[in-house]
């Protein structure tokens, strides 16, 4: 299948595997990412996987585009090593109208009861296509087609940290309070970014996520444990 190289100046280039946001395209991105990570050519700084392309960052003083692209082409032609299987997570989410201020309005617009919207959102195992926007912000798909809505016309200036949100065929959990245009349908009490953890970012591209509905009492209890430093997110890892 055709691969396209596009320039991002003299420190990076993209390896594009198409235009589509789908698992098959993303699997090729992740496979190349894994291969270059395992066997980096000289002068490689890092690689950044996104939906359908891999950004290859290099040091133009130590090497050059020609050399790095040749190494990437060789990696592409080499064995079709599959990326390491991602981890599996179960993230608690409270679908409470107070914590998900768009829940009721969005359910109305979709012609669904709020409970039905929550059940549909909680049904699939999501795939983390990529991280971006802010540290730890995962773009997860695919959202059930019944829940597909464009982003809000007026982005919020302040989305609370932990907000569980949807837009298009994607869902996410905001790791930080930040501006944001996605629809807020609930809240996760576990921080997706915690500078106090050895690995501050919880999710990685390629991970899989299930949302588990919890009631307000359980949400408050977990939030309290997090605040007191007693919550170990390793407990959210599902058995492989």
């Amino acid at each position, binding site marked *: 299948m055709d691969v396209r190289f*596009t*320039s*991002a*100046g*003299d*420190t*990076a*280039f*993209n390896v*594009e595997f198409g*235009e*589509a*946001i789908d698992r098959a395209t993303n699997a090729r991105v992740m496979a190349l*990412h894994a291969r270059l990570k395992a066997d980096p050519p000289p002068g490689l*700084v*890092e*690689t*950044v*996987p*996104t*939906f*359908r*392309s*891999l*950004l290859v*960052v290099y040091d*133009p*003083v130590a090497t*050059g*585009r*020609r050399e790095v692209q040749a190494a990437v082409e060789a990696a592409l032609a080499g064995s079709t090593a599959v990326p390491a299987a991602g981890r599996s997570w179960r993230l608690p989410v409270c679908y409470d109208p107070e914590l998900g201020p768009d829940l009721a309005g969005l359910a109305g617009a979709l012609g669904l009861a709020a409970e039905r919207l929550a059940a549909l959102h909680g049904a699939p195992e999501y795939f983390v296509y*990529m*991280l*971006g*926007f*802010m*540290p*730890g*912000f995962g*773009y997860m798909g695919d959202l059930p087609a019944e829940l597909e809505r464009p982003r809000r016309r007026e982005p919020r200036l302040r989305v609370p940290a932990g907000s569980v949100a949807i837009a298009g065929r994607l869902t996410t959990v905001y790791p*930080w309070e*930040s501006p944001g245009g996605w629809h807020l349908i609930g809240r996760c009490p576990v921080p997706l*970014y915690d*500078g106090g953890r050895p690995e*501050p*970012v919880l999710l*990685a*591209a390629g991970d899989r996520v299930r949302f588990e509905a919890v009631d307000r009492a359980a949400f408050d209890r977990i939030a309290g444990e997090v605040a007191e430093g007693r919550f170990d997110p390793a407990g959210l890892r599902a058995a492989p």
Partner: protein
Amino acid sequence: MTVAADADAAAANADARPCLTVVRPGLFATIQDLGRFGYQELGMPVAGALDPLALRLANALAGNPPGTAGLEIALLGPVLRVDAGSVRVAAAGPLAMTLERPGQAPEVLAPHRSHTLRRGDLLRLGAVEGAAVACLAVAGGFALEPVLGSLSTYVRAGVGPLGGRPLADGDRLPLGRGEAPAGPDVELPQPPDYGTGPLRVVLGPQEDRFTEAAVATFLSAPYRVGKEADRMGLRLEGPALEHRGTADIPSDGLVTGSVQVPGSGQPILLLNDHQTAGGYAKIATVISADLPRAGRLRPGDALSFRAVAVEEAEAIRRRQEQAIAAWIQAIRPARPAGGIDLEALYAENLISGTVDIVNGGSDLPLA
């Protein structure tokens, strides 16, 4: 020993640690190194010094490795008190500095040379004029704990030293060494040359998402930095750039220097705190040799763009590295205008017995 006494002893030890104490924080001073690479796949921006050339030169003057973290100062700098036996500092960039030493008249300190300060001195960093930022390096660097391998500060998410925020009143910036290094203060013979003319870009990665007229306009029209300008990027004002179809693409990776164009057609030049990925088509990327210039741009500054090929951009960068190495090589013992810096000379003589006032490092006996 009681727990309370232990705590007191620990506090006393902490107080005794050599540091620079922030007496006034200035408007926006952050600790930065050359960036937090390696974590963009987690959505972690690179951050780092907007003007990496200034940081590297300040570090060279302070005798540090090039990537040592220093202070990046925007607008108006902090006032720092020396709570260490002595410390050597050096600034690069258009930074006003004054030394207030007890019992002496305030003394203006020049950038692009080092200065050796002693306990109790107040270093008053003033306005940054003519560029967005200047850098201050301290010999030995700051004894701070790196976050994900870097001392760069990413304020938006509070990542980095000092909790990822700018300097605040009363901050104590621990120093990597308690005394200034031996030897005279040094200077750059000339301020660094950042070059002039259009910022050079490599077209792409999505130049094909723009009309031919838009690409031609981008490469010829004058632009101006708008009011919305920060460490994330600069909104540019000038002729709108027309997309072929929509401005939206599946989000892909960004670099410092990416020029993304949202639906409004007004380009945004992304700087060090840019997000790791974005969904707007990017018409071009500023080449790495011109990023120090881009990082110095302020609201109201005029700019334009000229295209070069990737190979040319790489060659320009390698030539620039040779020039920087030559400037660093030319660093020499500092001599104030009008004569020899006798204080530095005597200090050097006391330590080594000999100094070459012209070239440094020879064995011309003076004492």
